[in-house]
């Protein structure tokens, strides 16, 4: 053991005067700068939302999984869409071949969305949707689903990920170039603040940056740098900061270094609060509160001895809870092999239920607050992340993306991490040590190739039944609006009502704006 954190910070061997815990002078949870938590009562008032990311195959199949998870005590929904949906393509697009229903549920029109949430009261349950480039279209479909099931869309609650900047640097499901993409995002901020006041309009994500190989410092630095870019973009449109900022939310990874992860969440909270207040002049405390979702680290899961992943997930989930997360997804043990089976998904949910109900951890807010090491590490992460944010902002966030600066920083960390495992400087149980030659076999979830045929058939039927002249008219309207500067949300909403497909809507926008050409960095 080299006594460095996973992010490479040297861990001091004992507490000394330079590590003075200042917790006695630190404000409690719920008080600016919120290092100890964003709410005064935290889990003593209400537990975090247990929100398992799921989706595969058709809307019917995913709807069954949703009902199963709710029956088993999950408290919020989180939707995984397949790649064609995430890329704004219909299931019958040639590029969708082999991909329909694979990593998430296939959605072509609002009819699929209605099927997806069948039997679920959208005024009661909150739904998170991992959708970015076409986020406006999917949120419009969700709102129309509410509308047509008799729920006032003002009551819908949840989160759309809607974070395009991290797609360019880490996750890869981008469609349009940055400028029109940022406009879609600020259009969403504006429209939602009036019409869907309970919806979080963005989930600014460090999760995927970490999954792409970054360190904890890079995770908070690049996430907050992106967040600052969104704030500036919204301010440029003339919106008041306290109008949109209370609906900004965040999404972080819970990785292997338990104490460093707890410190990371604390540091991120404090940094956001001070930035919003001191640099951007927010007045409403809600604008300063960094509320976040956490998912345990997918890339930490091993294909070898997969049951061990249950233990990894437990420790990671515990760091998120001790770090004050607002909602949590715990990964399934079989995710290095395939999409989770019902059984694996249930164990993952049970893991957080055991933390919530049996461990006693939620009883005290920020239980590590005041620990020499925790306070020192929180300060250290903050200092290093601030320096990195400055480096990015000296280049400019969009320029740093175009130049591939952020991508290269992440790749370098990913490569060094892999080398440290290959050289056994870092031990991963079952992978580079404690290896078992004989591996058991597991039942895996498979998605049938016929899903695409079913989707294509359904889409064809809808296109035959709908008023095609009305669809054509609204798509033309969208095309000219995309060239101008009016808010696009109301037009997209109307296109969705008229049963335009996701491929038609985003295809119209692609025609006007073109596709993003990524710099190639290795």
């Amino acid at each position, binding site marked *: 053991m080299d006594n460095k954190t996973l992010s490479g910070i040297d861990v001091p061997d004992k507490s000394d005067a330079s590590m003075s815990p200042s917790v006695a002078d630190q404000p409690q949870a719920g008080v600016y700068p919120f290092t100890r938590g964003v709410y005064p009562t935290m889990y003593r008032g209400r537990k975090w939302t247990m929100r398992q990311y799921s989706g595969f195959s058709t809307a019917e199949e995913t709807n069954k999984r949703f009902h199963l998870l709710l029956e088993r005590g999950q408290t919020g929904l989180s939707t995984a869409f397949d790649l064609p949906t995430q890329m704004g393509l219909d299931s019958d697009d040639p590029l969708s071949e082999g991909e329909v229903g694979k990593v998430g549920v296939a959605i072509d029109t609002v009819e699929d969305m209605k099927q997806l949430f069948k039997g679920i009261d959208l005024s009661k349950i909150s739904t998170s949707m991992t959708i970015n480039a076409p986020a406006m279209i999917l949120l419009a479909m969700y709102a129309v689903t509410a509308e047509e099931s008799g729920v006032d869309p003002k009551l819908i609650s949840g989160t759309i990920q809607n974070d395009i900047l991290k797609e360019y640097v880490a996750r890869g499901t981008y469609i349009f170039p940055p400028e029109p993409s940022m406009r879609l995002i600020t259009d969403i901020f504006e429209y939602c603040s009036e019409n869907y006041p309970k919806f979080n309009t963005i989930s600014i994500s460090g999760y995927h940056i970490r999954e792409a190989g970054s360190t904890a410092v890079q995770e908070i630095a690049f996430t907050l740098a992106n967040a600052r870019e969104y704030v500036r973009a919204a301010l440029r449109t003339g919106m008041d900061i306290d109008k949109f900022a209370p609906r900004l939310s965040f999404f972080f990874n819970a990785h292997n270094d338990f104490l460093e992860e707890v410190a990371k969440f604390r540091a991120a909270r404090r940094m956001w609060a001070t930035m919003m207040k001191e640099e951007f002049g927010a007045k409403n405390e809600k604008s300063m509160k960094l509320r976040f979702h956490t998912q345990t680290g997918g890339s930490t899961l091993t294909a070898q001895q997969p049951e061990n992943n249950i233990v990894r997930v437990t420790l990671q989930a515990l760091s998120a809870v001790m770090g004050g997360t607002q909602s949590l997804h715990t990964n399934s043990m079989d995710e290095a*092999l*395939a999409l989770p089976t019902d059984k694996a998904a249930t164990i993952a949910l049970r893991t957080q239920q055991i933390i919530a109900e049996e461990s006693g951890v939620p009883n005290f807010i920020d239980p590590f607050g005041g620990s020499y090491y925790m306070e020192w590490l929180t300060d250290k992460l903050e200092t290093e992340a601030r320096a990195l944010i400055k480096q990015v902002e000296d280049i400019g966030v969009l320029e740093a993306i175009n130049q591939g600066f952020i991508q290269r920083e992440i790749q370098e960390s990913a490569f060094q991490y892999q080398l440290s495992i290959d050289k056994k400087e870092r031990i991963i149980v079952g992978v580079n040590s404690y290896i078992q030659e004989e591996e058991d076999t597991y039942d895996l979830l498979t998605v049938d190739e016929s899903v695409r045929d079913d989707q294509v058939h359904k889409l064809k039927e809808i296109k035959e039944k709908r008023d095609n002249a009305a669809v054509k008219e609204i798509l033309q309207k969208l095309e000219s609006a995309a060239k101008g500067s009016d808010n696009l949300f109301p037009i997209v909403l109307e296109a969705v009502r008229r049963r335009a497909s996701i491929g038609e809507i985003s295809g119209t926008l692609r025609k006007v704006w073109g596709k993003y050409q990524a710099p190639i960095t290795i």
Partner: protein
Amino acid sequence: MSSKIRVVIGKPGLDGHDRGAKVVARALRDAGMEVIYTGLHQTPESIVEIALQEDANAIGLSVLSGAHNHLFRKVLKLLKEKNAEEIVVFGGGIIPDDDAKDLMKEGVIGIFGPGTPLDEIVAFVKDNVKVIE
């Protein structure tokens, strides 16, 4: 002509996960090979086209999206159609064992899952990919 092994690392399909592809690309390059990384969202057609233009000896495909069966097979088929079967295909990603076995039977020379050390992949490529002068 140079005797360096030339490898195209390709990301076919809509999958955006390229951490593995980039780490492997760099390891092969550090081991002295010529490596061309295609970037994301390539079609099998564009990857084969790049491999032909670049006189590649091998194509390494990375797929984590579950679309491997379709995408690997399509690349093999295209290479056959272009009479370019001397370009060997290997790959990695989240590929269940049963699928990996089937793909190997159909001509993929190696599939590497999560946790594979880089040295193992480098050694495999050196041993199994020939430079045709």
